[in-house]
């Protein structure tokens, strides 16, 4: 099925290009509706290994193991999964000073008024409570913020989040 191409939105190739530019070795993820077009691209990308999990809290722990073993992982989950992952973010992100970039599908995000989705209403408060800085990406032009997040994570030796507003195919 053909997918209409919108110039002012975020396309998966822009995200994958950022990951490759930053020499990301692994994407530890659980699919979500905000990043659903990325799977095929990542699956076909020979320089990035996909690690699928059953529940989001596994992702930070697997990333911690990859990191201590010398790799450069990122996590890709939905904001709902962040709520599930609290103890992993605490124990295997913040406590061990893991420079982990977490790409987070921003379910419920809208620039057009208040959202009724509590996943959107609570996520930024949640990140604030942990002292985790975050960037928002909504268009291809925003994608370089992933590099900013990667740099910040390395510089501060802390997890940094990238909230993915919406993703469109092709």
């Amino acid at each position, binding site marked *: 099925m053909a997918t209409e191409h919108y110039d002012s939105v975020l396309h998966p190739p822009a995200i994958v290009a950022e990951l490759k530019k930053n020499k990301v070795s692994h994407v530890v993820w659980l699919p979500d509706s905000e990043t659903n077009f990325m799977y095929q691209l990542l699956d076909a990308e020979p320089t990035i290994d996909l690690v699928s999990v*059953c529940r989001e809290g596994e992702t930070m722990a697997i990333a911690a*193991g990859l990191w201590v*073993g*010398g790799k450069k992982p990122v996590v890709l989950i939905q904001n709902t999964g962040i709520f599930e992952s609290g103890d992993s973010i605490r124990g*295997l992100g913040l406590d061990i000073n893991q420079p982990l970039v977490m790409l987070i599908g921003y379910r419920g995000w809208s620039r057009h008024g208040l959202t009724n989705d509590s996943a959107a209403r609570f996520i930024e408060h949640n990140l604030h409570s942990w002292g985790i800085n975050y960037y928002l990406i909504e268009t291809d032009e925003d994608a370089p913020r992933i590099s900013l997040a990667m740099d910040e994570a390395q510089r501060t030796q802390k997890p940094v989040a990238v909230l993915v507003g919406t993703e469109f195919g092709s």
Partner: protein
Amino acid sequence: MINNTDAVRLLDRKRKNNIIVPTMNAGNTRFGLPSVTTNEKLDLPLSGAMGKASSLGLGIALAQPGRKVLILDGDGSLLMNLGTLVTIANKAPKNVYHFVFDNGAYCVTGGQPVPGAGKDDWAGMAKAAGFAATFSFDNIEDLTTGIDQVLSTTGPVFVHLKVAPEIENTPVQFRQRPRRSVQQAFKDVATSVGGR
């Protein structure tokens, strides 16, 4: 039943230059791996983020395919992250050896029974999840005899150990603390494997 210290001592003796990720009783500072280890710089004890030792071990195994990773899990811990069996089996790392120390209880909180204590078929669950091989031992003699076969089997391997509970009732603030901080343990392992 197997004595906890006897089990970790045997695994440490067989470890060579491989990494061990112990948690709960297997990682206890008084009677777990830290009390008998011969290569602390390759030990990564996990006390926080309960349930995630196997996920941490999986990540190390994927990053370091030339080394074996021995995950020493607890039954209560594994119950908190049961999907990890499928996650590991799906990725199928040949160097993962996932031991569960089945003592049937939450020992660090006073010995309350875990759900399914005495009824769970741990090796059966791992087999059904897709592990390449599973083993089960309920005495140290058989474990001593069988451990070489276990560690020479291509992973992911799951090993069920029926272990006697070591229940702690000392208030947490009076318990023996680890010699190393968790940050230091991560640094030690990373340095030892050339990770960063």
